[in-house]
């Protein structure tokens, strides 16, 4: 019988939540790597038992953990992330040049067809790739070196490459997003890159429509329609119908267009989900009501999804990597909060229930649909 495996990264360890296709009764294992920050863990689309996890600590640095049995056991693999050549500088918060310094891996994106190939988005922002199951890592330095790297500045959470989207129709095309630089695309498997930020407007930067410098929080794609991208920017929900060449705002009737995650329904490429957050200085839902908003029209027209979610006195946040969908029918939607709850909907968002309520602050949620 098919089922799902939800991979949850938290401030103090990783948790693996499993259920059958009904998604009603859950088994919870963890904490794995207790006490360490787990920014992200994700399974290989080519081998669901192959998982990668980013384990980090302010004391002891970065580890990459790998599992070959769906998260039952793990082994540390390579943790040497060295920038290619002379690292150079980016801009610091005060505008002065600051040397590129590796801090942590924010996001791991296993390749679509090879379980041993995996990409890592890191802070300070760069993209690394491993072709040997995470044992060794090489920077795809054309990204930092394409020309604008010296002008990138960190967002409040650091200068991180947090989103990696692989085009299933074109193995040479990847999208990445960096806070606070924006979206970049390669069409030659990472050798050369171009900024993809035309149409974005960010009032918090000197030139609101600059090519580079936007605080993009997350981008998402439906694999059946890789030319269409959706974006949750710092403020504004955006859409591109030309693979990132241009963007237009689709915030529509959202109560706030600030937020972090955005995701796409597994079977309906125009059904998208966001979690509005009141503002960038108040990282909690408007009116203390935790509401997922769903658009069935690819943006602009949004409906609040509230059944089963707290509708009073709720002041948690939902971080950029903390939402995911499964591919069962009906599509399951999952998200985790900084309050330690992981919510699941087995009916595409119509109703929700907590899988678990009291984990450490949730940093990331990924879902695997198992045969």
């Amino acid at each position: 019988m098919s089922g799902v495996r939800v991979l949850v990264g938290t401030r103090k360890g990783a948790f693996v939540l499993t259920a059958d296709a009904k998604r009603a009764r859950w088994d919870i294992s963890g904490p794995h790597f207790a006490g360490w920050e787990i920014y992200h863990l994700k399974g290989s689309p080519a081998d669901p038992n192959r998982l990668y996890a980013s384990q980090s600590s302010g004391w002891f640095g970065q580890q990459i953990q790998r599992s070959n049995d769906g998260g039952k056991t793990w082994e540390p693999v390579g943790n040497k992330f060295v920038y290619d050549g002379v690292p150079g500088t980016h801009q610091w918060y005060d505008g002065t040049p600051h040397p590129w310094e590796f801090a942590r891996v924010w996001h791991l994106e296993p390749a679509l067809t090879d379980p041993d190939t995996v990409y890592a988005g890191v802070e300070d922002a760069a993209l690394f790739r491993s072709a040997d199951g995470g044992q060794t890592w090489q920077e795809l330095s054309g990204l930092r070196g394409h020309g604008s790297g010296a002008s990138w500045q960190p967002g409040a959470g650091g200068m991180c490459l947090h989103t990696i989207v692989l085009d299933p129709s074109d193995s040479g095309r990847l999208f990445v997003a960096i806070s606070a630089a924006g979206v970049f695309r390669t069409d030659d498997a990472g050798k050369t890159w171009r900024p993809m930020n035309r149409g974005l407007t960010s009032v918090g930067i000197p030139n609101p429509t600059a090519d580079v410098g936007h605080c993009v929080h997350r981008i998402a794609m439906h694999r059946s329609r890789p030319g269409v991208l959706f974006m949750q920017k710092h403020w504004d929900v955006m859409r591109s119908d030309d693979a990132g060449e241009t963007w237009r705002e689709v915030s529509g009737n959202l109560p706030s267009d600030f937020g972090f995650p955005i995701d796409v329904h597994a079977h309906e490429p125009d059904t998208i989900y966001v979690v509005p957050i009141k503002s960038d200085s108040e990282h909690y839902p408007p009116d203390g009501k935790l509401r997922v908003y769903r658009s069935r029209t690819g943006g602009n027209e949004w409906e609040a999804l509230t059944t089963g979610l707290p509708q009073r006195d709720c002041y948690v946040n939902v971080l950029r990597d903390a939402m995911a969908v499964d591919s069962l029918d009906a599509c399951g939607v999952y998200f985790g909060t900084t309050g330690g709850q992981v919510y699941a909907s087995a009916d595409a968002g119509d109703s929700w229930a907590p899988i678990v309520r009291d984990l450490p602050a949730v940093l990331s949620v990924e879902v695997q649909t198992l045969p």
Partner: protein
Amino acid sequence: MIRVILPTHLRTLAHVDGEAQLHVEGQATQRSVLDALEACYPMLRGTIRDHVTHQRRAFVRFFACEQDLSHEPPDAPLPDAVAMGAEPLLIVGAMAGG
């Protein structure tokens, strides 16, 4: 034999119960002990000192014989008691936080 006591998280990472016991060629220094430690436990590379520069991570400290050796040069001899195995070298995750 050099005795090294690791912080809890690194003992877990390296699957070490109790002390790590290391054979160190030549003089016992921070560098030679860490070289031996990382050779025995490769997963500890990068956790105590930088992979490339070998600079000690900011929140890691080295204590032995009731002394803080963290700021000693990496090639300075460790105390005789550590070199002879009478006392352990403590690798400590510095107290930090609220």
